[in-house]
């Protein structure tokens, strides 16, 4: 028999004791390398473990993101936590359960098959045996490697998986201290930084006396230390407002040389075309015959921000040469390695522990803040350094989601269906996470010897691609190819933002589908169904159209619009279909959204619906309102007035539904609603107006311009 194929997390972390531990208080501690970012993963992992071990939920503790005790599962990203960490925990628990039953059976002189597990106790013939996990725990060798050979429970046996379960972390978050921002160990000093405006910029002059005067004027007394390493500067004080005021004042009292200059047109996606790029073709070879009925559509999305509610923060301290960092980053083992490389310490001299932060939706400033804190802590050993970015620093220096320009060239057959389809994409990289050979922790660029510049790359197709994510239509297309222009030198640092390229690509595909339906004189739903043989996507379209009463859709151009879209995230994770209902006057109001998603086996249905709803609202916000604005030296949309997001008075009524997974394996759900929502809104706006807007965000100015042109 072949050895079972283990999830990558188990291949990398095979020892059972990296995952599971029996604790003296008669609980089981499960460890995961994935971290809670508001998506409910810690709760879902606990559900999986409880079911597989036959334990009540409250007997399962979950340790998340700890380099000392937990597994290295890289970053919490790409909607992979349930697929990878969840399936790893399930295999580990099944194996440990089998080992425990073997030990108990030896003691009881029976067969393991005679035993059942009831709330962690081992029963025989329906009666307790006096044995349980904790009585045999000492005899189970958890230093062994997992084999993956123990059978896992059938889905029909689940009692906790598949049942909506309240989030473990939420009670603390509605009551008081809960975040890394609230972690105040003894001997705490507050810190803020002055940021290097761009790589290569040199701090020629820093008027420290003026900064001290300004800080004192703002905030009265309070000791202020200025920590400097080449072009990295931090202000440290026991009084938080003193450190903050010093950093704010520092901008006025610092002279930078060699700072990068950005031209106004670089802010727009249109600028990407024709820039130096790595070019490649994926999929079908070049068409050999000229197109007969060519339809072309170009759409764009600008640079967009993660715009976390909290500025990034970290707490670091050095004791006896050991550096401990508390961070809300998405991968603690990688953070430890990256900090070790940056500060030239062995990884064993560093511990990284996850504490909660505000939602990040991708690679924001969290990791960078952790290095900032570590650099200061190494200069001030014995003190706990709580480093927090300023609001304007978070907006100004977090990596942003890259602008994208997507042109579709579709040649039709004589029935008006796509025969040959080329997707041409211009985008900067979607991932510059440190440690994946694609990016650095920000402060290293301010060092006297910064790391050499890396040639940008994008996630491989095996990982779902970056700019190419969801570029392949879900529809039946005989020949499809992608021309990918990875633009090498964007004006700002870009990295992972929820969905990566999925939103612009799905927007482009579904714009094209509506265009093709209109040319064929067919209803957009009927047209889609005529070229969609993929059964799960088909089913969702039919369900969501029914819920939204699609058949009653009115004529175009009335100011009220209904639009739809469907996609399978990464072409391999969860499916989602969305109908959006909008009213367009001078601006767009999204009135109602219906979403049907198929995520296979869903661990926590209410948690998954929460993710669908959140993705819907975030996507509407991106589509209607958001654009990072650039000035001469970088980002200038530095607060919530210049970077508005969707508000309570602007959110639609949402009906999000998970269809029965029909026994299929779990599929990552956290990002699946984003692309279809943006596309459904775009299609609904086009239906309402009778003309189409191709460039996001769909602002008042663009609506007016489109109406004037029509």
């Amino acid at each position, binding site marked *: 028999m072949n050895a079972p194929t283990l999830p990558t997390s188990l291949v990398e972390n095979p020892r059972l004791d990296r995952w599971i531990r029996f604790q003296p208080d008669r609980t089981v501690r499960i460890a995961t390398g994935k971290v809670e*970012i*508001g*998506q*409910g993963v810690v709760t879902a992992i606990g559900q999986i473990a409880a079911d597989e071990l036959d334990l009540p939920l409250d007997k399962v503790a979950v340790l998340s993101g700890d380099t000392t005790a937990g597994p290295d599962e890289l970053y919490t990203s790409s909607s992979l936590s349930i697929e990878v960490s969840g399936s790893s925990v399930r295999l580990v628990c099944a194996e440990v359960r089998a080992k425990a039953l073997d030990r108990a059976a030896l003691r009881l002189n029976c067969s393991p098959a005679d035993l059942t597990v009831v709330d962690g106790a081992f029963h025989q013939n329906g009666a307790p045996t006096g044995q349980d996990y904790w009585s045999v725990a000492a005899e189970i060798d958890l230093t062994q490697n997992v084999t993956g050979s123990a059978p896992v429970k059938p889905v029909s046996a689940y009692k906790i998986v598949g049942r909506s379960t*309240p*989030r473990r*972390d*939420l*009670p*603390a*978050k*509605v*009551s*008081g*201290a809960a*975040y890394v*921002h*609230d972690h*105040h160990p003894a001997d705490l000093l*507050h810190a803020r930084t002055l940021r290097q405006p761009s790589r290569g910029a040199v701090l020629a002059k820093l008027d420290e006396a003026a900064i001290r005067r300004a800080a004192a004027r*703002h*905030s*009265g*007394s309070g000791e202020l230390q200025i920590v400097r390493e080449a072009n990295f500067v931090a202000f440290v004080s026991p*009084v*938080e*407002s003193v450190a903050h005021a010093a950093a704010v004042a520092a901008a006025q009292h610092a002279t930078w040389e060699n700072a990068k200059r950005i031209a106004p047109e670089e802010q727009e996606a249109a600028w990407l075309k024709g820039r130096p790029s790595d070019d490649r073709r994926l999929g079908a070879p070049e068409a050999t015959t000229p197109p007969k009925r060519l339809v072309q559509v170009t759409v764009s999305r600008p640079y967009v921000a993660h*715009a*976390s*509610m*909290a*500025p990034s923060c970290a707490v670091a301290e050095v004791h006896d040469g050991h550096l401990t960092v508390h961070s809300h980053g998405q991968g603690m083992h990688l953070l430890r390695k990256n900090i070790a490389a940056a500060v030239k310490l062995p990884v064993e001299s560093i511990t990284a522990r996850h504490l*909660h*932060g*505000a*939602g990040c*939706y991708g690679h924001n400033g969290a990791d960078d803040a952790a290095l900032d804190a570590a650099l200061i802590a190494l200069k001030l050993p014995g003190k706990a350094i709580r480093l927090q970015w*300023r*609001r304007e620093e978070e907006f100004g220096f977090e990596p942003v989601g890259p602008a994208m320009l997507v042109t579709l060239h579709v040649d039709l057959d004589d029935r008006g269906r796509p025969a040959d389809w080329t997707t041409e994409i211009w985008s900067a990289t979607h991932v510059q996470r440190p440690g994946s050979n694609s990016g650095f922790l920000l402060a290293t660029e301010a060092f006297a010897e910064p790391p050499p510049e890396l040639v940008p790359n994008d996630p491989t197709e095996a990982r779902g691609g970056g700019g190419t994510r969801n570029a392949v239509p879900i529809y039946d297309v005989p020949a499809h190819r992608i021309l990918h222009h990875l633009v090498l030198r964007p004006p700002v640092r870009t990295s992972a933002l929820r969905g990566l390229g999925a939103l612009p690509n799905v927007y482009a595909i579904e714009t094209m589908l509506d265009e093709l339906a209109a040319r064929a004189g067919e209803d957009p739903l009927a047209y889609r169904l005529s070229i969609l043989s993929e059964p799960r996507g088909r089913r969702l379209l039919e369900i969501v159209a029914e819920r939204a009463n699609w058949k009653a859709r009115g004529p175009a151009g009335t100011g009220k619009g209904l639009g739809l879209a469907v996609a399978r995230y990464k072409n391999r994770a969860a499916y989602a279909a969305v109908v959006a209902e909008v009213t367009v006057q001078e601006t767009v109001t999204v009135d109602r959204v219906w979403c049907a998603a198929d995520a296979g086996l869903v661990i926590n249905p209410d*948690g998954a619906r*929460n*993710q669908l*709803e*959140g*993705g*819907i*609202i*975030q996507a509407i*916000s991106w589509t209607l309102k958001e654009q990072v604005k650039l000035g001469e030296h970088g980002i200038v949309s530095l*607060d*919530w*007035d210049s970077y508005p*997001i*969707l*508000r*309570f*008075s602007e*959110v639609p*009524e*949402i009906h999000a539904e998970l269809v029965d997974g029909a026994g299929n394996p779990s599929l990552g759900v956290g990002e699946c609603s984003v692309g279809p929502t943006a596309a459904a809104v775009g299609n609904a706006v086009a239906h309402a107006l009778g003309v189409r807007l191709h460039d996001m965000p769909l602002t008042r100015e663009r609506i007016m311009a489109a109406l004037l042109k029509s």
Partner: protein
Amino acid sequence: MSIAFTVNDTARKVDAPETATLLEVLRNHLGLMGTRYGCGLEQCGCCMVLVDGQTTYACTREVGTVAGRAVTTIEGLGTVESPHPLQQAFLDEQAGQCGYCLSGILISAKALLDRTPNPSRAEVIAALDNHLCRCGAHQRIIRAVERAAATLRAGRPA
């Protein structure tokens, strides 16, 4: 200088400059971490507290101006063990993802329900419109406030 005021029904005295923000005093002098820094600009609502029952941005309010007044923070509503009906309603509706915005939102909801026990949906939305939520939990939050209003009305003597 010593400033005396009431926090969550307890008399407190802090030694801080009058110009220090209420947010800094609550967090760093009194250890009340539920009031959160988001922007420092009265734009996001993460730092919302009540001063004499009125919603107030703690990030810009100078502590000297609350001398002799009553401040209510999220810790004054309830605890994990004994949550206020508003906190319980947020848990019942699972109204939140990352949760960073919630303590400020709960404070504005408290102010709303104190003056309007039976708010319309439009009144709930208006009361929360100064708050931002980036995770997109808005609809759950609105439902949670309505649920808490119903619970509080049911518990109130006729």
